[in-house]
């Protein structure tokens, strides 16, 4: 009987959105939705499995910007407000549904119960910093925490700028050390964006492995021996694990994935959009910006607008069926592959964490059922990439191919007609940052802070989130504003430093606004500078 190992990689990332200059800000809800619908329920589920001694080990990437936001007292306070607001809405909904919509009352009670659990966990278990929950699971050996690029930059488009790539990797590791007190051994490439040579930067920071898009090995210049069922060693010794598109697509497909099942909860039917404005106004963004509240009462049902009420009991059964189907598919695949492989297959399954719980409401339940089901079987195990490398330290040496998991498998998403104009300005900012680092090396005091802020702004402008959001057409104006303003902020520093001046008032405000990367050293944009390795 083949033994199948699944290397599950969950990528948790949010773009850096923090607006202390406003009492409340719409786009901060992205973070709050992720915490309440994905991260807190995921932590509860994983801890439950641990408590019951269900064996599992998975890899999770927590991006530097996400970690910064999760640790930020202002955002922690706002999330508390968000939870209390939703608790109030839940109480109101329970009361309304009792008289108006009894079918929904059970669901309203279900959501209210989750919110109450989230409140309890957030305050009592985690003291408002949920990173401790992930750290705890890592310490017990159930999670391997890895990092990703400092501002989630899509790196192939910056491959001609070693200082920028180096900064993204170095600051990511620095951030990880600050939050988790250890060097990460793995690296999540944003959007699985890989270019040949990227592994050199990873090796400089003692990274041992990273993940690749599904086609990266099959399309390499030399033939891959084991397909995507084993990692390869880049020529410098860093390992690359390619995703299994076939197994991933069982889950992550708009057309045929499990989440599209008609009995599962419909994401887009939300009382934030369905109920009268007078009722919902206190709970959305003023004056009439309707938003998702998380109170959703309908099942997917079908493609049309006629939806049936959501039935959690029926969905629960379907979750179990889908979990069993998944495990069955993995086992069957292992049997078919056995004659062609000289070792047990390792399947790399990589997902955005927010798929589970937020986009796919039943996703966390499904994950739990899969982990439990695998534990009961003898032929499927969830292990980390490091577990695999400990077992099989030798792998085929192969240079992966240029690749990404974006549409088309390359850089089209981030260079389409709507967003490609950005690079003219971002690349110019990088060049100017290099110029500043060379012209003003080893500064101290105010000038150092000023230059560090410039480096922060360049890195924030490089985030892949902005062109991605513009490509998708959601919150496009916000994304464009962000990118422009980061470059504008950079230009403030550049123009002042060209006159050898520091704008202290501006600096103090800018530092308060963008508090990310407190230990940044602008000298990293000078490739010839000698700096000490950061170890926390």
């Amino acid at each position: 009987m083949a033994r199948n190992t699944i290397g599950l990689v969950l990528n948790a990332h949010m773009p850096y959105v923090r607006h202390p200059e406003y009492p409340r800000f719409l786009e901060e809800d992205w973070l709050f939705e992720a915490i309440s619908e994905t991260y807190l329920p995921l932590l509860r589920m994983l801890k439950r499995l641990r408590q019951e001694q269900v064996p599992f080990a998975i890899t999770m990437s927590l991006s530097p910007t996400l970690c910064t936001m999760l640790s930020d007292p202002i955002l922690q306070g706002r999330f508390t407000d968000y939870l209390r607001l939703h608790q109030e809405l839940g109480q109101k909904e329970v009361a309304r549904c009792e008289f108006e919509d009894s079918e929904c009352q059970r669901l309203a009670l279900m959501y209210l119960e989750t919110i109450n659990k989230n409140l309890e966990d957030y305050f009592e278990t985690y003291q408002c910093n949920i990173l401790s929950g992930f750290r705890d699971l890592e310490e017990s050996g159930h999670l391997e925490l890895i990092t990703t690029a400092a501002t989630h930059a899509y790196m192939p488009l910056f491959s001609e700028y070693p200082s920028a790539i180096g900064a993204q990797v170095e600051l990511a590791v620095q951030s990880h050390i600050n939050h988790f007190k250890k060097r990460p051994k793995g690296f999540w490439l944003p959007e699985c964006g890989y270019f040949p040579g990227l592994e050199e930067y990873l090796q400089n920071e003692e990274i041992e492995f990273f993940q690749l898009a599904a086609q990266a090995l099959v399309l390499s210049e030399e033939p891959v021996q084991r397909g995507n069922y084993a990692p390869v060693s880049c020529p410098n010794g860093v390992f690359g694990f390619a995703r299994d598109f076939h197994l991933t697509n069982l889950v992550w497909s708009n057309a045929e994935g499990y989440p599209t099942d008609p009995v599962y909860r419909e994401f887009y039917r939300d009382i934030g959009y369905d109920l009268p404005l007078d009722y919902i106004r206190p709970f959305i963004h003023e004056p009439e910006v309707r938003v998702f509240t998380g109170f959703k009462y309908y099942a997917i049902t079908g493609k049309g607008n006629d939806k049936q009420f959501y039935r959690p009991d029926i969905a629960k059964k379907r979750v179990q069926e889908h979990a069993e189907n998944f495990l069955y598919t993995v086992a069957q695949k292992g049997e078919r592959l056995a004659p062609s492989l000289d070792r047990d297959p390792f399947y790399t399954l990589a997902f955005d964490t927010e798929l589970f719980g937020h986009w796919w409401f039943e996703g966390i339940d499904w994950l739990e059922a899969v982990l439990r089901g695998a534990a009961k079987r003898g032929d499927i195990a969830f292990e980390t990439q490091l577990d695999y490398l400990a077992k099989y330290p030798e792998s085929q040496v192969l240079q992966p191919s240029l690749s990404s998991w974006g549409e088309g498998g390359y850089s089209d998403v981030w260079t389409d007609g709507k967003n490609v104009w950005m690079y003219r300005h971002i690349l110019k900012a990088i060049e100017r940052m290099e110029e500043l680092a060379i012209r003003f090396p080893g500064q101290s005091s105010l000038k150092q802070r000023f230059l560090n802020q410039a480096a922060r702004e360049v890195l924030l402008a490089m985030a892949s989130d902005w062109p991605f959001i513009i490509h998708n057409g959601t919150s496009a104006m916000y994304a464009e504003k962000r990118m422009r303003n980061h470059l504008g902020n950079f230009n403030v520093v550049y123009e002042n430093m060209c006159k050898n001046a520091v704008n202290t008032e501006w600096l103090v405000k800018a530092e308060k606004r963008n508090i990310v990367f407190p230990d940044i050293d602008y000298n990293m944009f000078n490739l010839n500078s000698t700096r000490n390795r950061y170890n926390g």
Partner: protein
Amino acid sequence: MITPNIEALSLGELRYIAHKQGIEDADMMDREDLLEALEEVYEESEDSLSGEGNSYSPSNQKRFMNTLVEHAVDIFTGALPGVEPLPEGYSETRIHLLLKNPYWAHAFWSICPQDLHKLDQAFDSFSFFLRVTMHMSPDQRLPEESYDIDIQISDSSWNINLPERGRVYSVSLYYRDPEDGVGLLCQSDTVSTPKSYWLDHAPKLAEDDARFSLLFSSLVSKGGVMVENPLLREVVERIDEQVGG
């Protein structure tokens, strides 16, 4: 009613909000006057909001709408106050080439005013063109080739077709004078398009079912949808041709 943190806003942003609040002569007001006027507006509405119940209660708290980025209005973002208006180009003669995929790259350039002035001085008229160069292969078996694209003087970017995979490309910006003389203005760094073993050896896969399954079983979904990728598609097409032939 909404209450922005008006102290944090720039003069332009304050004027924008003041207009929205219907404050007359906002354009004439200085910062202090605007702050005073807006504070009066917000104080009036606070009185109508404050209600009963726990002061902590979220529905009694102030809310803010991001008034400066309209969510459903078709406005050029760069024209909004508080949004950085980036320049059209930079004062340098430079061209960049970004690889989009194995068959397309995006070139963008700028020409510094001094260089344009020199051309104006030197010639009665001139035009620009891009030269796309496919460099000689490292083993020198494939020669250098190039093709030209005529562009307008006002152009600053172009999507460039890359006719052959696995080659190294660059793009250069040239001028052409009235006597058909040409001059190089700038050249980009090179980009390399990926090579793939199986593109050149697809027939082997056609004859080796086990190897084909090993490679493609992780690339095709349960419903028969393959990873979206032009090179993979080409591999499959070549295999199909081999099998069909």
